[in-house]
């Protein structure tokens, strides 16, 4: 059964005022359990609005959202438990830190779930290890940390709730390449360790291609498609028309094909591309 399902989901901002804007327009979608899905779309395409429906932060103007078969907003009192099931990490999550120590801040979510002290402690230690926060950091004030570390603390705060679905809105934006790598690495790690569903919103096609197995494309408030990575990147012409792009390495290989060196078109990662090239050049692959 699909863990997230939407039926004609529509959301309108500022209805009845001159600022009216349809942000999500009749979206029908099914996301399976265990999927690692990338969410792409140009700025203002409705990605962020869409994902805020998945944990009941926004109420659909019309249509419905089902989480694990349960229709959201039928019972408002149930929304809180839905939020523990579907963890949402906002863009620039480090701005939501507020506690005196890193430890306490990560504990905020699990504490709200009503878990006992022991379980909370276990979860915090486990998540801290996963995101790479040392014990000495745990007792510091979150405001003393560097930007990248703050980001990790904030993401850990949601991961510690061990949600069945983890949604991250641009978790790596504004970080240096190394920081990006680390953040995306730990998300991948989380997906591998728990086998949970992960939705990753990103503008970087490279990040998407390297990590996910499915891609959700939003265009002008509408769902363009939700499909396997290969199939989506296959429609590169359409993506480019929307102002999106395929990974650079994919473009290199389609150009090579046009020049008469056909090595297949399903090249989305540099790693795979370079091994193909090395094979072609008659050498053994690097690793």
């Amino acid at each position: 059964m699909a863990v997230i399902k939407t039926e004609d989901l529509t959301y309108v901002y500022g209805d009845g005022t001159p600022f009216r804007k349809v942000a999500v327009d009749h979206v029908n979608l099914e996301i399976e359990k265990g999927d690692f899905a990338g969410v792409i779309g140009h700025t203002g395409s409705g990605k962020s609005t869409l994902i805020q429906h998945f944990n009941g932060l926004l109420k659909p103007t019309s249509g419905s959202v089902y989480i694990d078969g349960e229709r959201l907003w039928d019972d408002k009192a149930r929304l809180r438990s839905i939020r523990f099931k579907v963890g949402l990490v906002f863009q620039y999550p480090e701005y939501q830190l507020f506690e005196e120590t890193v430890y306490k801040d990560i504990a905020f979510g699990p504490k709200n779930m009503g878990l006992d002290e022991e379980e909370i402690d276990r979860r915090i230690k486990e998540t801290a290890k996963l995101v790479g926060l040392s014990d000495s950091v745990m007792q510091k004030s979150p405001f003393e940390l560097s930007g990248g570390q703050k980001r990790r603390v904030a993401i850990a705060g949601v991961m510690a709730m061990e949600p069945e679905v983890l949604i991250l809105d641009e978790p790596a934006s504004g970080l240096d390449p190394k920081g990006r790598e680390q953040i995306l690495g730990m998300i991948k790690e989380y997906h591998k360790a728990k086998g949970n569903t992960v939705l990753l919103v990103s503008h970087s096609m490279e990040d998407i291609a390297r990590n996910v197995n499915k891609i959700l494309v939003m265009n002008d408030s509408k769902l363009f498609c939700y499909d396997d990575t290969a199939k989506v990147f296959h429609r590169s012409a359409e993506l480019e028309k929307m102002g999106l792009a395929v990974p650079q390495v994919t473009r290199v290989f389609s150009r090579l094909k046009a020049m008469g060196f056909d090595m297949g078109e399903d090249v989305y990662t540099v790693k795979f591309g370079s091994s193909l090239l090395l094979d072609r050049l008659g050498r053994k692959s690097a690793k």
Partner: protein
Amino acid sequence: MIKDITIGQYFPGDSVLHRMDPRVKILLTGVFIVMLFAAKGIEGLAVGILFTVTAFLFSKIPLKMMGKSLKPIVPIVIFTAVLNLFFIRTGKVLWEWKMIKLTQDGIDTSLFMVIRIICLICGSSLLTYTTSPIDLTDAIERLLSPLKKIKVPVHELAMMMTIALRFIPTLIEETDKIMSAQKARGADMETGSILQKAKALIPVLIPLFVASFRHAEELALAMECRCYHGGEGRTRMKQLKMSISDLWGALFCGVFLAGVIVVNHVFG
């Protein structure tokens, strides 16, 4: 959603009232208030009503928006009406029950008061409906600029107001975001006792505080980078200019004010 609150209730449009100089609009709103209070009887008030309705029609503001601005004053209107209805004991007695006496004068006065309050609110809210908050502060700065002679820091005050107005939407958006983020972590802000609700605000207020300091610092830096040094010798990108529609507005207003005075004399 907090985001849906309209700040300063500005309603964008392109009517004659929108195009008028904000300085003139502020002054004419003053004249309008004088006009309403100058009216002595219901006849004079009728001229005021006519003025309000005409101005409203010119502004092309939807009636629904007007209703919205009247909503918060409903308790005051009712209070005024009831007070006048039962505490004016002169005139012909229409109905009596124990201590309570309903007189013709009471009904007349309370009706007069209610209409005057409604006109007052409708007319003056036209100013804020047709003028953006930034234009308003600009106009206030210009109108108050003679006070600079007696060392009132008019420019600085106006700048503070502009910055405050500029950051209200930003901070609202930020509050919205932080609230959503904490709700996503299971924060419960709706249920519980007052004390619990106050406590639930801490995860919102602290990040908001940190954010506003960050904004202030960034803005100060940005202003300094552009050599801001106060109002001395500063020119403006948007010059306030009076046009023919301002003249018409002033004439229109003047005629109605005169109308009220004349009507007062004729019927008074």
